[in-house]
């Protein structure tokens, strides 16, 4: 391969372009994965609280619980007594309810968990209608506003994600293709001279493709290293008890390296083809 010398600055610049493209894709995927995860977390926390009348009898509670469990979409039902409600209040607000009111105004309630696919406003409203048929239930509450935000934004998020993915992928391919093409254009005379003195197409093509392969590999490895450093910082900054910031796993990083290497190789192969069309 000695006969095809490489211009160092051109190799460095196209390697950096590949690194930037892969880095951009990696950052996008991290944001995308974590935003989807965040929405899922909010949705997972959605449950129905059915507040009962204070006068409800223990026998009625078990009957009511059994009847609610038969409603489609209900995963499980947990009874929270007035005393337990007071305990939860104390845990969340750090104050004894009896100190505030002299009596416990918190009603007993049923915490109703739903299957994921039933955590939509439409379906919860239907379940709510079923629940309202029970006279023991005084009030029904769920995080309607949160769900509204999720439903409104999840569609836009999918659209945004797809659009960004398409834009990033195409601009990466375009950017890398152009950089490599410019590099090959710079070697147009060399290619022309080699053709005139009897080099076969394979002889000319192979070093360019190999060069593209190594640039792709080097660029994407560089991107993955930078990505890991960035993500390490984000992980330590944004992970807390409620939200566990996801780092792209090793398998995904390997896929990114393969993607970058393929981009480099294919970019070279396609660009060099143009210059070899004439025999």
């Amino acid at each position, binding site marked *: 391969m000695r*006969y095809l010398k490489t211009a160092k600055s051109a190799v460095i610049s196209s390697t950096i372009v590949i690194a930037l493209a892969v880095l951009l894709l990696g950052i996008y995927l991290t944001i995308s994965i974590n935003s989807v995860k965040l929405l899922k977390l909010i949705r997972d926390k959605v449950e129905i609280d059915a507040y009962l009348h204070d006068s409800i009898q223990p026998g009625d509670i078990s009957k009511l619980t059994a009847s609610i469990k038969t409603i489609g979409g209900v995963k499980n039902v947990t009874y929270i007594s007035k005393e337990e409600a007071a305990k939860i209040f104390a845990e969340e607000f750090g104050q004894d309810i009896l100190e505030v009111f002299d009596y416990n105004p918190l009603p007993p309630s049923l915490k109703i968990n739903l299957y994921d696919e039933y955590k939509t406003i439409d379906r919860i409203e239907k379940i709510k209608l079923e629940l309202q048929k029970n006279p023991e239930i005084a009030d029904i509450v769920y995080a309607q506003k949160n769900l509204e935000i999720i439903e409104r934004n999840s569609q836009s998020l999918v659209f945004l994600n797809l659009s960004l993915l398409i834009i990033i992928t195409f601009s990466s391919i375009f950017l890398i293709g152009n950089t490599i093409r410019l590099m090959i254009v710079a070697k147009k*005379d060399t290619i022309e*001279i080699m053709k005139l*003195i*009897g080099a076969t197409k394979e002889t000319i093509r192979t070093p360019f493709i190999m060069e593209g392969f190594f640039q792709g590999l080097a660029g994407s490895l560089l991107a993955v290293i930078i990505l890991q450093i960035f993500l390490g910082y984000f992980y330590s900054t944004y992970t807390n008890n409620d939200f566990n910031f996801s780092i792209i796993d090793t398998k995904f990083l390997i896929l990114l390296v393969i993607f970058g290497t393929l981009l480099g190789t294919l970019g070279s192969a396609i660009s060099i083809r143009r210059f070899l069309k004439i025999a």
Partner: protein
Amino acid sequence: MINFNNISYAYPSKELFTDVSFQIDKGEFVFLIGESGTGKTSLLRMINMELFPQSGELVVYGFNSRYIKKPEIPVLRRKIGFVFQDYKLLNDRDVFENVALPLYLAGMKPDIIKKKVYNVLNEVGVFDSYKKMPNELSGGEQQRVSIARAMVNEPYILIADEPTGNLDPFVSFEIIKLLLNINYKGTAVFIATHNYDIVRRLKSKRLLQIKDKKVLDVVIKE
């Protein structure tokens, strides 16, 4: 060795040759003359199978322009030494590497390449410059390197397209003397030129002229 049989060729805007027939044999030294634009370069490019006749048949070392397959074209080109008016040296590598290029392409071993390159550089008189870059050489030296590159593969024929076009008269004649020497050792030489001074000085050599879309053998009168 090279056989043009009733060749015609035209560019979209201009007809160059009609029914051209001639032959170049082993060991010949032939000049090709003609006014600018008559098709001297196109004719040479046909021999290198860069251009293909639109009618007729061109046979170069048994490769027929009608039937040659694309992968065979590089094989043919490696049997021809081509010298260009603008030298076509690779400016990003030194003299040695430029001359060694056809041998690398032929897949030769480094020690053989080294030996062959030193020999041919010695033969054309630029051995001392083998480490220099093309832009450090004069026009005449660059043309010598170009001739060395064309000769290093020991081709059957050396084709030169206006090899003295960019050189002063003295250096031009030195280059022609070098080509004569190459021919003397058995390689056929085919030179396209409009340097009539040189042609006149070597009137004993065969002279082809492109005129009125034909290629004719001519004899220079005293």
